Structure formats: structure tokens, C-alpha cells
């Protein structure tokens, strides 16, 4: 069973639809007690960093999420904003602390990058794919204005280019983060979500 945590204004249906299409069991969860029972977790999300963190704070989910991801090592996939909140902070919105699974920060695309927001299909330059079987011929759908510039090289799955390079997917122990939207990336997304659902265990 894969649990999708409903975040404020999240794109939960797309993730749910694709996982169901691929034959996986899915549930939508909203609170602490459901979260504590999750065996595999997806953090979806669109919206801004501070609004998302505020929502988690108001619903008293921050500590539970940290416990679940860091201590209980529940396999977790963060998509787009769901990835960004895994970092420690962001230049987006009012300053606030992220989940800090990774210590680095999220920045706003500046003049070194060609498009703001970065919207559309893009390739991945695979740095550490290991068992993920990601292919550089794969394309994924992106839609974001803030990005992860640097992270320990061992945590990088892929980089992508928007004028300059940025980190497009990350991994550490039981956590994967994807800046792109596998749930909007048709056949390439099938592969990615299937991997997470079937093969990604700690």
C-alpha cells in the first residue's frame, strides 16, 4: 500500500491515478495517525514552500514526518514541492524551516538560467542511477521556479539543464526526491513510479 499525504493544494489525483493504472494499491492520507501507519509514502505538492510548511505545521505533521522518514525509514518519494520541503529552507515565501532531511537550500532561478519558471519536458543527466534503470533518453515534465543548486554528489540521482545545470532528482537512504512530475510524464513516469512502488525498499 502506498500512502499519498494530502498537502494543501496538492496534485494528489494525478499521482493516485497513475499508481492505480499501474496496478498498485493507493490510499490518500491527511492526518498524524494515518501517517504513522504508512509503509510507503509519497509527498506530492504544488504551491509555495512556506504555504506547504505552514500547512504541515498547522496540522502538526512536521515532527511525525521527520520521525517517519529519518528514524522509521519509511520509503518516501517527494515530488516537486514534496521534494523541495525535504531540504532545510527555501528562498520562496516567508522564511521557514523545511523538513531538513537534506541540509541544503532551495533557491530561485536567477539570470544564469534561461527560463523562469522552468516549464516543460526535459532530459536527465544521470549521475547515480544504480538500480533505478533511469535512461538518459527519458523525458520528464517539469514546472517550477525554485530549484536545488547543490547537494552532496552521492545524493544526486540526476541533473538537468535550464540554461545552467540544477539538481533534478536526489536520493538518500530511504528517500527519493524528484523535481519533475513523474505522474505527468506518461510512459517515463510509469517506469519511475513503478520503480518506487515495487523495488524501492531500504
Amino acid at each position, binding site marked *: 500500500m502506498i500512502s499519498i499525504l494530502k498537502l494543501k*493544494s*496538492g*496534485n*494528489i*489525483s*494525478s499521482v493516485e*491515478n*497513475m499508481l492505480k*493504472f499501474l496496478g498498485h494499491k493507493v490510499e490518500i492520507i491527511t492526518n498524524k495517525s494515518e501517517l504513522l501507519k504508512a509503509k510507503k509514502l509519497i509527498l506530492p505538492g*504544488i*504551491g*509555495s514552500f512556506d*504555504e506547504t510548511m505552514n500547512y504541515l505545521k498547522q496540522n502538526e505533521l512536521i515532527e511525525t514526518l521527520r520521525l517517519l522518514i529519518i528514524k522509521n525509514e519509511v520509503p518516501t518519494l517527494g515530488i516537486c514541492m514534496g521534494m523541495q520541503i525535504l531540504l532545510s529552507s527555501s528562498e520562496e515565501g516567508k522564511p521557514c524551516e523545511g523538513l531538513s532531511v537534506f541540509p541544503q537550500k532551495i533557491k530561485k532561478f536567477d539570470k544564469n538560467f*534561461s*527560463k*523562469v*519558471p*522552468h*516549464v*516543460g*519536458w*526535459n*532530459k536527465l543527466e544521470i549521475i547515480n542511477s544504480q538500480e533505478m534503470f533511469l535512461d538518459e533518453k527519458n*523525458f520528464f*515534465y517539469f*514546472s*517550477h*521556479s525554485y530549484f536545488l543548486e547543490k547537494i552532496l554528489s552521492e545524493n544526486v540521482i540526476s541533473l538537468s*539543464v*535550464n*540554461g545552467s545545470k540544477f539538481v533534478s532528482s536526489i536520493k538518500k537512504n530511504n528517500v527519493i526526491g524528484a523535481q519533475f*512530475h513523474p*505522474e*505527468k*510524464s*506518461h*510512459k517515463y*513516469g*510509469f517506469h519511475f513510479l513503478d520503480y518506487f512502488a515495487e523495488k524501492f525498499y531500504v
Partner: protein
Amino acid sequence: MFNFRVIPVLTINEGKLVKTFKFNNNTYVGDPINTVKIFNNKFVDELIILDISKSILDLEPDFENIKSICSECFSPITYGGGVSKIDHCIKLFELGVEKIVFNNVLFEDRKFLDEFVKIFGSQSMILSLNIFFQKDDYFIYDYRKKKITNIKLKDFFKDILSIYPGEILIYSVDRDGSKRGLDFNILESIDNTANIPIILAGGLNNYEEILEAKRMKLDAVAGSYFFTMHGKFNSILISYLNSRQIEQIRE
């Protein structure tokens, strides 16, 4: 590098998929959900769904229908039509809509658009500009009143940048359904120093134009006739790029 997109625009009128001609004379094309299924099977880059009956009559979006559409498509879906409240937007995103396209609100309630960007971010917003070419210049077209306004595209374009839209859809009304080809000259009349992604639509009629748009470094082209109809008698034919063409535009 950045990837160019080719986007079918599907126009819905009272639950039916229609093709418009110069934003008029709706011709029945088929069932929207089946059509979306076909595009999904062809691995479409993205779809833009415009519910014209909702925006003209100021009705709420048909959430049930949008839900069914979204559940049939694993590519990004942009929706427009009758979206006038933040609650509508929250609901649409929850159903799986990726971006919302706004047009009327631009003239009526800019504060709403500012609020939208604050809550959902620029990348969730497409502003749509309906353009009519007249007397050597491009003017904004008010499709609810079916009237060409005296607002020039170049002024309006500059003006709306302060909303921080994620993308701008420029739709040539006089070419809609005309098969006359995309109006690339429109791009010369705007000053896009802000480098906002532009989607050009209206008149798309062949694959060569798509390649030309890519060469011109446009971000995306959109079309409706080209993907839903065919031939002298406007027969219905739902089609998309073939896999060889998709590879070519990805290069």
C-alpha cells in the same frame, strides 16, 4: 536543452467537444473523454482544455467532467473556463489539473490573479490573449462580446507581465480554424525581454510549421483543427505527432 512542446487545444461547449472557426460556428467533434484517451495513448506533450460555455455564461467549471478527463490522461492538463475563485483552483489542482489558463479575469479581477500567483505560484498560471489582426496591428479580442477592442497587443503584453504569469498563450482569433498557418509575425509585435514562455496558437496546419516554431525558439505551439480535423470537408480525425516526429522535436 529546453524542450519545445506541441499542445492540442480541446474546446468544450456544454459537455461536447467542438471545433470553433474564428471563435464562432462550433462544429461537433466528439466526446471529450474519448478524445483525451486517444491523445493519452499517443503520449501527448500536454493538453489545453477550454470550456467556452462556462466562461461565456459565467458558470462554474464542470468538476465531474474534468475529473474524468484527468483520470484518462498521464500528461499535463491545462484547464480554462469559468474559474473565478481560489476554491475552484484548489479543487481543479486536486483533480489533477496542472495549470489553469485565465482570460476574462484579466479584464475584470486582477487582484484575483495576484492572489492566485501568491498561493499557487507562477508556474501554475497561463494567461491567454486572444488576438485579432486588423489594420496592420494586433488587437485584443473580447470573445464574450465578440468584439475587437482598441487595446493593442504590444501594450497589453507589457502590462500583464506584472502579474507574473508562468506562460502566455497567444491565440490568433482571425486564424482560428482557418488552416492559414500560425501567425509568426505576432512575435515581432511583443517585447518579451522577461523571457516568459510563449505558446502560439491559431491556424496551425502542418508539421513544417511546428519545426519552424521550434527553430524560432518558441516554447510551444498549440492547435485545435490540426489535431482534430482533416481535409476539404473538415472531417473529424483525432491525430498527434507520430513517434518519429516526437523524436525530431525533442532533438
